[in-house]
C-alpha cells in the first residue's frame, strides 16, 4: 500500500486516504475538435513500464487534487506536485532524472 505526500496539506498518508484519478496532463478537447483529437483526449492513455505521471486526490483529507510522478515497476515516488499545471515542474523533472536518467513520458523528458 503506497504512501503519498499531499503537496497541499503536507500529510504523508497511506493510500486509503487518497483516490487515484488516472493519467495527468490531459489536454481537453471540446466542441469543434477533430475526431482524432477528441479520441486522444477521451480514450487514449499511457501505460508505461516505469516513469508515470498521475492524478491523485486527497479524498479523505484536504480534498485537493494533485499530481504524482511515480515508477510503475518499483513503486518509487519521485515527487508530488500541484494539479494546477499543464506540465511537470522542473524540480520534479530533475527528481525523476536523478533516479531514471533519460526518462521520457509523452512529450516530457
Amino acid at each position, binding site marked *: 500500500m503506497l504512501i503519498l505526500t499531499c503537496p497541499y496539506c503536507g*500529510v504523508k498518508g*497511506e493510500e486509503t486516504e487518497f483516490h487515484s484519478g488516472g493519467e495527468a496532463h490531459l489536454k481537453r478537447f471540446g466542441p469543434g475538435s477533430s475526431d482524432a483529437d477528441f479520441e486522444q483526449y477521451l480514450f487514449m492513455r499511457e501505460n508505461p513500464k516505469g516513469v508515470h505521471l498521475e492524478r491523485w486526490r486527497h479524498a479523505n483529507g*484536504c480534498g485537493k487534487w494533485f499530481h504524482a510522478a511515480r515508477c510503475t515497476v518499483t513503486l518509487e515516488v519521485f515527487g508530488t506536485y500541484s494539479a494546477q499545471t499543464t506540465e511537470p515542474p522542473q524540480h520534479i523533472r530533475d527528481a525523476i532524472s536523478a533516479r531514471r536518467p533519460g526518462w521520457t513520458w509523452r512529450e516530457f523528458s
Partner: protein
Amino acid sequence: MSEAVSALNAATASGVATVEEVGLRGMITLRGDLSGKAVAAAVKAAVGAGVPDVRRIVQGDQGAAAWMSPDELLLLTGYDRAAEAVAAAQDAMGTAHGLVVNVSDARAGFRVSGGGAREVLGKLSPVDFSAEAFGAGQFRRSRLAQVPAAIWANENGSLEVICFRSVAQYVFDLLRVSGETGGEVGFYRA
C-alpha cells in the same frame, strides 16, 4: 428555536476512554484566499481568532478556527450565534471572492477523553496519534474506519472528532466499540 437537537442528543459511552457527543455547536465553512486580508478579517469578526496554519486549530475569544484545506477553514462557535457569526464574516469579507456558509446542522462532534483516547482513535484512522506526532492544536482530516472525519487535539489531552451528521451513530458506535474495556493497546507512551 428551542426544539433544536444534535444528531445523538449528547450520547455518551465509557470504557478505556470516555466518548461524548458534544451536542449543538456553531460551525461555519469559510472559503477564500487564506493569505488574504479579507479572510483574516472574517475569521477575526466571526470567532475572534487568527487564521490557523496548515493543519492547525487556533482558539479565539468567540470560538476557534481550523485549517481544512488550502482555501477552506472551519469556524467553531456557539450554536446560537452561528447566524450572527456568518453575517459578521460575510460583512468582513466585503467584496472579496469567498464563501461563508453555516454548516452547524450538517455535522456531529465527539469528544474522546481519558487515558485511552489516543488509542481509540488509533484503531480507526491511519494517523499517528502519538503525543509527539499529534500534539495540542494539531488538526487532521482523514478517515475514521469507512467515513471521512476531522480530528484535533485539545490542550487538556482530549481529542475531538467531527463527522457528517448522517453517520453520527456509526461514528459513535465505532468510538464506543473501540473504547470497550479490555481493548487497551499500551502502545503510546504517556
